[in-house]
């Protein structure tokens, strides 16, 4: 199958693509928003690499918002992503300033933004949990992601994953979470 052409698509098309889980939309979002985000970051004390990193994160957050239904298409997608990028960059600037107080960059240009919806976990704990998740069988991993990240209903998960019904999927989810809990405890003991 040929690659899909993603040019000249409307915001609505992009949002629909994300809702359908089409990952080519990630590239489209990346390309469309690169220039403004690079300008934002490089004019506020960051490098182009910083900007690309912020854009990566912003696109992923946008994806997540669309997928879990919390994105309401009131503003243009570009404006929304720009807003996310601004918050992400603010958070990073604040972190940098905390880490090296004498070398803090001015972040006044973005200081009105609230903190981004990023994970609240410390890096160490995140790594610990990620290591445990990687040890899970693929079915469990998918099921937990569909339920907790994609916010899908059990009926939908059962349909997608080929379980007999929502109850079966629910029982499997319980088992998977218990297994994850055990793996995390094992990691702690190690």
């Amino acid at each position, binding site marked *: 199958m040929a690659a899909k052409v993603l040019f000249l698509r409307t915001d609505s098309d992009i949002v629909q693509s994300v809702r359908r*889980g089409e990952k080519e939309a990630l590239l489209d979002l990346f390309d469309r928003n690169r220039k403004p985000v690079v300008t934002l970051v490089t004019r506020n004390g960051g490098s182009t690499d910083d900007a690309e990193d912020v854009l990566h994160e912003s696109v992923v957050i946008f994806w997540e918002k669309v997928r879990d239904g919390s994105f309401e298409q009131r503003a243009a997608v570009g404006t929304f992503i720009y807003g996310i990028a601004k918050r992400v960059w603010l958070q990073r600037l604040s972190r940098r300033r905390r880490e090296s107080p004498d070398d803090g960059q001015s972040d006044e240009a973005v200081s009105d933004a609230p903190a981004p919806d990023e994970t609240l976990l410390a890096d160490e704990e995140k790594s610990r949990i990620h290591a445990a998740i990687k040890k899970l069988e693929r079915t469990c*991993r*998918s099921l937990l992601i569909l339920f*907790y990240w994609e916010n899908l209903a059990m009926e939908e998960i059962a349909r997608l994953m080929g379980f007999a019904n929502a109850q079966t999927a629910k029982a499997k989810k319980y088992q998977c979470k218990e297994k994850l809990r055990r793996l995390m405890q094992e990691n702690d003991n190690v």
Partner: protein
Amino acid sequence: MSESNQMHWVENDEILDRYLRGAISDLERARLERHLADCPSCTQRLSEERRTVEGIRSYAREDLRDDLRRLLETRSLRRRVTYRWLAAAATIVLAVAVWYIPGEPPPPPVLSESAFEKGPEPAVDEKPAEVMMQPPPEATGRAADDRQKETPAAAPAELPVAGREDARGGIASKDVTAGAEERVEQEDAMLGRAVDVAGRAASTVPAGAGQAGPDSWTIATLIDESDARAEEAGEGMAAFRDDLKSRMKKKSERQIISDPSGIVSLSQEPIGRARADMQRRTVPGEQLLPVRVRETADTLYITLYPETLWPESVLQRVTVDRSGPDSIFLRIGGQQLRLPRHTGAAVGQ
């Protein structure tokens, strides 16, 4: 309510899940929060649950970030391959174009006809300027197989949800672009050989020619450098072509190009380091290559079709024969093309 009863109540996964997913009713939320205020162990349980869920979410985010990174890398790799194909085509164009520089008759053949074990000049059927020769069955088969493979962007379309591919097809999300990357690598390797062929055919000097320029590998080296430069510049192919063309016009380099003869046996050594092992021999009954020939007033364009992977057997040999001032004979993989000067025709046999 006793502590154990409270635990039982909070251990109802469904309520915690609804709470953590923000899908709990106001009434239920109020009840739960009231309960949590009086139950430290329940609060502890909820806190653990929240960290686990947050860990799952951050894992999924990183997975998606990896997907985006892979998509970008694959695209970049594909662009690089495209540039290199263009470079290969440009090399052949420019190598042959030297023959068409007005007022510059080619030098006489270096070796006598008797030394060249070749049959009589083939009969020629004149055809229109743009001739797309039929690819050999092998090449066609591989091309068809190749077309059936998916591009990296196409793969996710069939696996629409970040985690669903795992669930449905047993395909890890990290495999999204793996097939495409493999294909790109294959193309890249194939292209490397094609560039080798082009560079050597254009830059090899027959033994005894006595006209070698200062550097027989100028063209091949130039491709490498210019390719990297083109990649940096993004749109640098035009500049690359101009640069290559101007360098090709230097007398010494033209002499190198103007006297290629014989068959170059290829090795797998990197461009710029390999030595062409020239052997004079005929190659009867070999395969046809998908080559497109187009001639303008001063340039002969020979395009190697990137859509079709060249059969390995074809890539083993390239011959650039010259039989006189009126035309050249190009033999690629045993297919002989007569390239008459200024007639606008290219004839495959």
